[in-house]
């Protein structure tokens, strides 16, 4: 049998062991009281009690703004970012699902080189959680999509190595692990949200109009969403005659998102909401029929006007979920 239990007493040393594999990042609280994944210099900075960070781990793979190309004298060159090896500790199941979704998008048919470079240097250490009122994930994927997963258990953790990298880390930490279980795991109630019928976005639910009227287009929901990956691409010449092309997070709720020369694919906010709903709960090519919402609860928590798109899946007459 594998030694796979970590007692609380060994936790700090375990964290120090992780550090041997790269720069350690994990959930911390900022000076102003915001939970954020950030560099960890001392294990005591880690906030294992965090519920969700404001910005999901996607920032490690797809930064808010990055240069993707530079050009000079008519020649384009792909930008190379030096990314260190990062061990991201304490990622909850919803955010692991979020990364798995982004992987499908960015590492699919034609892999995105910027994303792929960062992903290859990111080691994920998952951590089990206790859902709050905002959460509605579908539970831990089987097998969990990370290198190592820690399940809170009594006075310690159960440690599962799930990749070659994870096994390497478990091996390096073997003296800290024991055979003996640290306690029982609390089984968790998970609700999840299943893929919806794309036609539902044209339902006559009065909430559509209400949301389209009240949304202030602040962009918070999509900035904070672990699976929102839409970006804007802009090119800036520079004084030296060259220039750069950058990409920056965008939001399908912005009027500019569907704008092309002379027209807008989704000119009204209502159309944009329907589009967001379609992407989150119905999925579209090539991920049709797949919900991209992992149930982290961030969008509802950060929305200044309390919009919860999930309410649109409930038939207002019956108060039940549509099939």
């Amino acid at each position: 049998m594998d030694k796979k239990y970590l007692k609380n007493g060994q936790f700090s040393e375990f964290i120090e062991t992780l550090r041997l594999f790269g720069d350690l990042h994990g959930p911390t609280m900022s000076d102003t009281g915001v939970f954020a994944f950030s560099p960890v210099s001392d294990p005591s900075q880690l906030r294992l009690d965090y519920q969700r960070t404001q910005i999901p781990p996607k920032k490690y793979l797809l930064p808010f703004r990055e240069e993707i190309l530079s050009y000079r004298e008519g020649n384009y060159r792909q930008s190379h970012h030096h990314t260190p090896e990062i061990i991201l500790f304490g990622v909850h199941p919803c955010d692991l699902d979020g990364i798995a979704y982004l992987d499908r998008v960015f590492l699919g048919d034609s892999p995105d080189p910027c994303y792929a470079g960062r992903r290859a240097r990111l080691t994920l250490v998952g951590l089990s959680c206790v859902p709050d009122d905002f959460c509605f994930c579908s539970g831990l994927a089987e097998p969990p999509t990370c290198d190592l997963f820690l399940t809170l258990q009594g006075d310690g953790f159960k440690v599962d190595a799930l990749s070659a990298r994870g096994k390497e880390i478990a091996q390096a930490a073997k003296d800290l692990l024991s055979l003996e279980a640290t306690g029982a795991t609390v089984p968790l109630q998970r609700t999840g949200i299943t893929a919806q019928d794309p036609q539902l976005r044209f339902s006559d639910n009065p909430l559509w109009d209400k949301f389209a009227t009240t949304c202030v287009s602040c962009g918070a929901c999509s900035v904070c969403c672990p699976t929102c990956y839409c970006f804007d691409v802009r090119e800036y010449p520079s004084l030296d005659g060259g220039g750069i092309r950058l990409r920056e997070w965008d939001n399908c709720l912005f009027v500019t998102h569907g704008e092309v020369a002379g027209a807008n694919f989704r000119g009204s906010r209502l159309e944009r909401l329907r589009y967001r709903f379609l992407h989150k709960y119905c999925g579209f090519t090539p991920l049709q029929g797949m919900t991209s919402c992992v149930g982290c609860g961030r969008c509802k928590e950060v929305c200044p006007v309390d919009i919860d798109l999930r309410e649109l899946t409930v038939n207002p007459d019956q108060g039940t979920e549509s099939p």
Partner: protein
Amino acid sequence: MTRPKLAIAGLTACSGCQLTLLNCEDQLVDVARLFDLVYFPMGESGSDPDAVFDAAIVEGAVSTPADVELLFGLRNASHLLVAFGTCALWGGVAAMNNKVSGRDELVRQVYGDSGRIESFPPSPMGNFVSIDFAITGCPPEKHDLLALLAAVLAGTLPPLQSYPVCTECRSRENLCLLLEKGELCLGPIIQGGCNARCPATGIVCEGCRGPVREANVAQELELLLERGFDRKEIERRMSRFTPEWDYGKRR
């Protein structure tokens, strides 16, 4: 290559926008080499009234007959006219009391009874002439000005950004002052691009960059009223940099 001819000018304003150019210390030598600064009174280069320009970059609101004359002159003499800064684009701080006080009274307070100055309520230059490009901000960001200059050099205009302060604010993992502290933050309806400088230091967005294109003004008003702010106070804050709001606008 011919150096593009520039005019850098100011109407009624504090000169802070023009100062943004002088503050680009690292690029000034290049700017002087690459452009012909034909008209830049504040920087003490010439002020030839008959010159023609590739671009006129103009700060300030229009508030005196002399402003109108200078503005018309630059519009006629320049291929591109750029509204430079919040006053030029929205009216700015000089216009914040346009609705509440009479002009004559203000002139008397500032210049005394004997003061003879012709002045009318400051308004954005777009009310008088057509504008080809605008850089917002009080003061504008250096990088926006440099992007414009580089684009002019390349024979184009910079790409536009159009999202509110909240987008950058949340991306920087700031504490939301509106939601978490119940403060009167204008972030949702104000044009971003400042990297949420104020909320990042714990100060609410005062709206110095003017409205974002898609501002849901009516809803911002409603959500602030719901949080207990007084309508007068909200309007006073909103008009600090932008006197004219359509409080019923939703899209």
